């Protein structure tokens, strides 16, 4: 790792101000992606500003029809949160599948979505549930937040403080885990909102990162059941292809994972 200067922020305002004073700063949340990248010398921030100890940024709260997960909440705390398990069990389940237990103690929802890895779990949950990303400057809908591989709507120095999820009528998540990396070879989150809208998001599959899957949404709108997806054709065009799976394989996985997710949602 190249030399860097570590700062621990005690508030969101302090973190923003530290960022403004540095030449090339990075925010550090759980560090489960940023630190490995820095160790490989693929990133060399002059300063790292630790958000992990800001008390206002940790916690899970349910109120009415909204579940709010503060940005520096580790995956383990989401997976085991009574509020999350009661309001959106599929989201708590999603958190329980990220990385391994040690990674889940450190990695955070804010870090995951700010990084927007094309095979990360949370982006699928946010997009399918129609979540809203809260920052120190504004609110951004999930539809507007994710902008392709490792790219988001965040501006320089903008800090995610929380994510709020409308509690759905039904939701399910199914993931084909890569057995070594535990990232999604392809995973699909399905949700039926309380107003009856169907939203389906796939991660790990597209060259554009997390995407909605309109063909499956239409099929589930007509008939909310795994068999409704039998006749759907997913094009392999624009899907990822690598040594772990061809684009045709991932196209099929989108269907199969969507069916499993609907079955899990009930």
């Amino acid at each position, binding site marked *: 790792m190249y030399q860097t200067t*570590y700062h621990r922020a005690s508030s969101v305002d302090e973190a923003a101000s530290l960022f403004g004073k540095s030449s090339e700063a990075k925010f550090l949340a759980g560090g489960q992606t940023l630190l490995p990248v820095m160790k490989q010398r693929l990133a060399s921030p002059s300063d*790292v500003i630790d958000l*992990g100890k800001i008390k206002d940024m940790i916690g899970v709260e349910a109120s009415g029809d909204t579940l709010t997960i503060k940005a520096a909440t580790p995956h383990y705390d989401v997976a085991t949160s009574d509020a999350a398990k009661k309001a959106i069990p599929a989201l708590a389940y999603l958190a329980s599948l990220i990385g391994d*237990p*040690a990674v889940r103690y*450190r990695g955070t929802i804010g870090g995951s979505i700010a990084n927007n890895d094309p095979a990360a779990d949370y982006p699928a949950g946010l997009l399918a549930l129609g979540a809203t990303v809260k920052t120190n400057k504004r609110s951004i809908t999930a539809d507007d937040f994710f902008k392709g591989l490792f790219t988001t709507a965040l501006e320089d120095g903008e800090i995610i403080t929380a994510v709020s999820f409308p509690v759905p009528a039904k939701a399910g998540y199914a993931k084909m885990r890569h057995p070594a990396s535990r990232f999604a070879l392809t995973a699909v989150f399905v949700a039926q909102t309380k107003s009856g809208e169907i939203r389906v998001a796939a991660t790990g599959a597209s060259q554009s990162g997390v995407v909605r899957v309109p063909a499956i949404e239409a099929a589930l709108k007509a008939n909310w059941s795994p068999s409704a997806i039998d006749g759907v054709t997913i094009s392999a065009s624009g899907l990822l292809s690598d040594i772990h799976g061809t684009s045709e394989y991932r196209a099929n996985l989108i269907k199969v994972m969507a069916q499993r997710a609907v079955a899990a949602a009930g």
Partner: protein
Amino acid sequence: MSTVKLTVNGKAVAVDVEDRTLLVHLLRDHLNLTGTHVGCDTSQCGACVVHMDGRAVKSCTMLAGQADGASITTIEGIAKGDELHPMQAAFRDNHGLQCGYCTPGMIMSAIDIVHRHNSQGAGGQLDEATVRQELEGNICRCTGYHNIVKAVLDAAGRMKVAQAAE
């Protein structure tokens, strides 16, 4: 350079380190606690697992500064004098290691697994499938895991007995 103040195996320490220093290097190079290993150095193998405030974390994927103010327990800190921790004893009795390189991390992760499952009360009974799933962040290239899983299940029983006795 920064001074990192933390508690390691019950002792308060203050260490001057470069800001880029990883927790594992603070432990190994500055405190000479070389029981915690660096295996893959890419957050995958788990040889570097230590407990931070009771949670099993990968010390190669944390800056030392992030542990400022925390309480760290390493493999050197779990035995009581000459008496091995029940997890260490179970690894020995079940031949849960061959070369031993992954063992410190395995043991620290395994203690955390038992704590999490034993703390769920009587219903928190660890089974083989759960142990195998929960150990996925720890890689062993010798044993094929069979005796490691046996050791963890054995220790889970011993720790429950020890907990009940306290």
